[in-house]
């Protein structure tokens, strides 16, 4: 498979399209023209990108849950509940795992079993199986803008049906919906799949319909250094922009150290802007999303509220455009609508209460964002170099070479040499930088931070720290100090 970061030609796009729309019976319902019409009939206050732009102007942080169940009437009720009782500003439709893996037969079975048992047997809403009309029923039934959230390596058909179905924002990307969500998809393959998605959205854009696109920031959600998530987000933004996407929300999953988290959002925003401009995509709009703690959650619901609220606070102190909200059921399973609303309300309280505060200008944050900036530049320079100027080609090579390398990823196309651990203040650093193309200064910086911790803990820097850190949060701590009470 050969890819390059070039806008897909109409010929190749439409050839591919024919096959895509034949992947499942509902594909035939999709008609671009009438979908554009439908999208144009959606009122402004329900357009995702407009709502984000408005929030960005006002300096507000919007709140958005994750949610999806197998049966569509229940899905509508769930989302209504979240916008009314949960005070959500933005709505999701989280897609089930079978759909994510294009296993539409199993999803169909899941729908049927759910009907029989009266319990949702799917962990999300099977958009493809339902098709365009039912999606329009869903998106029309609600007052707030809706986004599709999933984790689908090959999301081409899903994109077709989603946008035709009236969703105005779409999450994912060729890297971020591959590396954490798949074992066997190559990067070429998924980048190519997502060029299709982005080109489709580019075509809506050209037809006068702007759809918001959001690379999935948190990746595996576990000890992801901001430079790694940042590099991936910027690459996906560039790839999307090339296909004609004009509205991009870059994301980051909370790591837990306040200074680092604020710096991560701050630098993510400025670096994305910088790179888009550098490659000439100056008309692409950039907003940011902060994901509340994406790793293992405490079992106790009150403790979970603590984690949720802390994420809410950091999101607003970092002035993220929106925050994705966890629920007090997170450690247990897909939340009930009440638990989902509870997470939203705790978050709403803090995004309102702290809206006039901003930590982006404190010196420690500025220093930390400069470090992130340098790290990202090292990585992206190397990606450009490997691709001889072509970001798509460079990305494939970069993963092969471990120049981009995501901790804890299931994908066999990920090198898995990079090892993260927390420094003594809880910021995520790298114990092993693997083949990341860092300068000696940056490597020393990471090493130094971890040596500080080692001294404090009276043990050498080692893999045991990584294990302790992953384990720590289940016990309530960020840093896995040995022998903590």
């Amino acid at each position, binding site marked *: 498979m050969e890819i390059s970061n070039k806008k897909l030609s109409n010929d190749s796009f439409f050839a591919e399209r024919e096959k895509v729309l034949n992947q499942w019976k509902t594909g035939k319902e999709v008609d671009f023209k009438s979908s554009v019409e439908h999208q144009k009939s959606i009122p402004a206050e329900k357009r995702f990108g407009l709502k984000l732009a408005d929030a960005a102007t006002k300096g507000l942080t919007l709140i958005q849950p994750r949610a999806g169940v197998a049966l569509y009437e229940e899905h509508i009720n769930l989302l209504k509940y979240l916008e009314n009782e949960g005070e959500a500003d933005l709505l999701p439709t989280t897609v089930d*795992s079978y759909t994510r893996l294009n296993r539409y037969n199993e999803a169909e079975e899941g729908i049927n079993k759910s009907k029989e048992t009266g319990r949702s*047997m*799917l962990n999300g809403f099977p958009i493809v199986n339902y098709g365009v009309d039912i999606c329009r029923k869903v998106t029309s039934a609600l007052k707030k803008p809706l986004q599709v959230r999933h984790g689908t390596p090959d999301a081409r058909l899903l994109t077709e049906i989603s946008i035709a179905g009236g969703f105005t924002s779409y999450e994912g990307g060729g890297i971020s919906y591959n590396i954490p969500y798949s*074992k*066997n998809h190559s990067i070429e393959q998924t980048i190519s799949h997502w060029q299709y998605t982005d080109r489709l959205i580019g075509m809506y854009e050209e037809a006068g319909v702007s759809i918001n696109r959001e690379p999935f920031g948190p990746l595996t959600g576990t000890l992801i250094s901001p430079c790694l998530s940042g590099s991936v987000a910027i690459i996906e933004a560039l790839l999307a922009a090339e296909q004609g996407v004009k509205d991009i929300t870059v994301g980051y999953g909370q790591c837990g150290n306040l200074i680092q988290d604020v710096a991560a959002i701050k630098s993510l925003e400025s670096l994305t802007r910088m790179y888009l401009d550098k490659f000439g995509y100056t008309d692409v709009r950039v907003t940011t999303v902060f994901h509340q703690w994406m790793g293992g959650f405490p079992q106790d619901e009150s403790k979970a509220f603590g984690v949720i609220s802390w994420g809410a606070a950091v999101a607003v102190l970092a002035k993220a455009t929106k925050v994705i909200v966890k629920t007090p059921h997170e450690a247990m*399973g897909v939340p009930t609508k009440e638990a989902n609303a509870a997470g939203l309300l705790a978050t709403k309280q803090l995004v309102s209460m702290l809206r006039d505060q901003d930590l982006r200008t404190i010196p420690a944050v500025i220093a930390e964002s400069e470090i992130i900036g340098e790290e990202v530049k090292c990585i992206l320079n190397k990606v450009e170099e490997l691709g001889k100027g072509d970001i798509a080609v460079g990305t494939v090579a970069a993963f092969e070479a471990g120049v981009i390398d995501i901790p804890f990823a299931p994908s066999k196309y990920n090198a898995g040499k990079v090892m993260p651990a927390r420094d003594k203040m809880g910021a995520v650093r790298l114990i092993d930088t693997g083949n990341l193309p860092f300068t000696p200064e940056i490597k020393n910086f990471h090493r130094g931070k971890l040596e500080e911790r080692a001294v404090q803990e009276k043990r050498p820097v080692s893999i045991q720290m990584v294990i302790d850190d992953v384990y720590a949060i289940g016990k309530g701590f960020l840093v896995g100090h040995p022998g903590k009470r």
Partner: protein
Amino acid sequence: MKNKKSNNDSITIVTGVIGSDVHAVGNKILTFKLEEAGFNVINLGVMVDQEEYIDAALETNADAIMVSSLYGHGEIDCRGLREKCDEAGLTDIPLIVGGNLVVGKQNFEDVEKRFIDMGFTKVYPPGSDIEEGIEYLKDLLKVQKS
């Protein structure tokens, strides 16, 4: 079933995350901790089919299979595993399962019962400490504890 062993070193455990589940973090920690405790671990990683567990167990003459399922479809994915083991001649092999086995927050006793009825030897609730699982394995396989 193989004879009891007196030393963890020669005890072989097959681990993996079943079905279309890609939750890799717990699997990595589980494997690390089992190895640390001296077991010989055959880790199949994520997205493991029922057949893969059985092939690995046969190939390595394994003492137990530890199945993880996090993403909620565990009930569907695990159904039939015991029967397939029986067919393959792994008649008594302990099947231990843990993770977030079902969709949503459900009463654990009910979930446990459903999995025991499906032929699982032992069922762990969400967020179980691996140490517990290891102690259980040692008892079950009559390993001398250090």
